[in-house]
């Protein structure tokens, strides 16, 4: 995509000058330039949310220098970005300790924590939990899939990701994009006896068998939904992508 000149801004990362696109996500820009910044709740395909607080950087804007998450910080003319300062690292370590306590079952959190030398947490653990309430699943469901079938319930301590009323929601097409995108693998998908089950959303959908290889490949509900969406005959999805 061609970027118009007036949208370009210059800014600095660790003392080096870069050209970025005005108001794009700073984290996106950092990654494009090859800087490694950890994050669990960010995905370039959906809007940034700033939940996991791992992509912290320090940004100097004018006279003010402050700690901020980079995913929802807009690239602006003249800002200076500092990556692994002492403050960033010490804060990030404690964020990891908080995440270890919230989601002791999340392997990705444990692995990331280890990279920072954090192997244990001084905080009370929520045993058995792997969800870090980052909301990426819901953002993908809404912004990419267009189903908007799941969302947060409650707030504060009681905030949790659910399907409404913690029941089956007909808006869920069983596409499993949420499962794929979940940074801590906490949603879970089962395909057994021709049924796809996403237990967390209480969704069980029979799958269609491929006309050619006869193997189940996707929920019929989802395929019909896609067919309606793009305006083709339902039979268009009779064969699986491999045999098509």
């Amino acid at each position, binding site marked *: 995509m061609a970027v118009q000149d007036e949208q370009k801004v210059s800014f600095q990362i660790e003392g080096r000058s870069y050209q970025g696109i005005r108001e794009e996500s700073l984290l996106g820009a950092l990654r494009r330039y090859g800087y490694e910044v950890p994050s669990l709740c960010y995905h370039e395909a959906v809007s940034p949310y700033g939940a996991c607080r791992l992509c912290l950087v320090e940004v100097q804007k004018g006279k003010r220098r402050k700690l901020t998450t980079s995913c929802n910080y807009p690239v602006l003319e003249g800002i200076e970005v500092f990556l692994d300062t002492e403050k960033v690292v010490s804060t990030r370590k404690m964020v990891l300790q908080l995440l270890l306590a919230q989601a002791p079952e999340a392997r990705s959190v444990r692995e990331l924590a280890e990279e920072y030398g954090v192997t244990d947490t001084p905080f009370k653990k929520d045993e058995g939990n792997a969800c870090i309430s980052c909301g990426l699943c819901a953002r993908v469901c809404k912004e990419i899939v267009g189903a908007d079938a799941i*969302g947060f*319930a409650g707030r504060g301590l009681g905030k949790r990701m659910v399907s409404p009323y913690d029941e089956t929601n007909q*808006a869920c097409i069983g596409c499993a994009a949420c499962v794929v995108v979940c940074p801590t693998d906490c949603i879970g998908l089962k395909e057994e006896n021709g049924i796809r089950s996403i237990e967390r959303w209480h969704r069980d959908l029979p799958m269609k068998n491929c006309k050619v290889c006869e193997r189940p490949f996707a929920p019929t509900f989802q395929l019909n939904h896609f067919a309606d969406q793009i305006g083709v005959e339902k039979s268009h999805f009779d064969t699986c992508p491999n045999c098509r």
Partner: protein
Amino acid sequence: MDSQKLETILDKHDRQPAALLAILQDIQEEENYLPKEDVQQVAKALSISLARVYSLATFFSSFSLEPRGKHICTVCMGTACHVRGAPKLVDHIRREFDVPETGTTKDLNLTLETVNCVGACALGPLLILDQEYHSNMTPAKLDRVLKPIKQD
């Protein structure tokens, strides 16, 4: 909720998604809580997802998704009421009425709720029973105030 009533509420707010909060407030005012069918109906009528309506209804603490009791007893838990002993009132009511975590007694007689401040801090601890304010409450005074309800 009677569907005609719901239509009236929706029309009053021009079926605007921005008025979602106000629409739910009007429903709760009528029904004393937010019945599931109405929540589903609102989503449909405003052409927004059920997930969005459900998130909003659970985010704001003034909404109840469960039927509430015949009597509603609200204890103010503002700072002034707290330092003057409001937590003891809550403990006491819980014990006396055997109120479960959900806040409503099994026989749907009483719902116990807390609120973060009703702006009558000078008179705390404050208790609102069925919209009537009772000031400077103590557990002993509570028994007198709640007596008629207990016999209800």
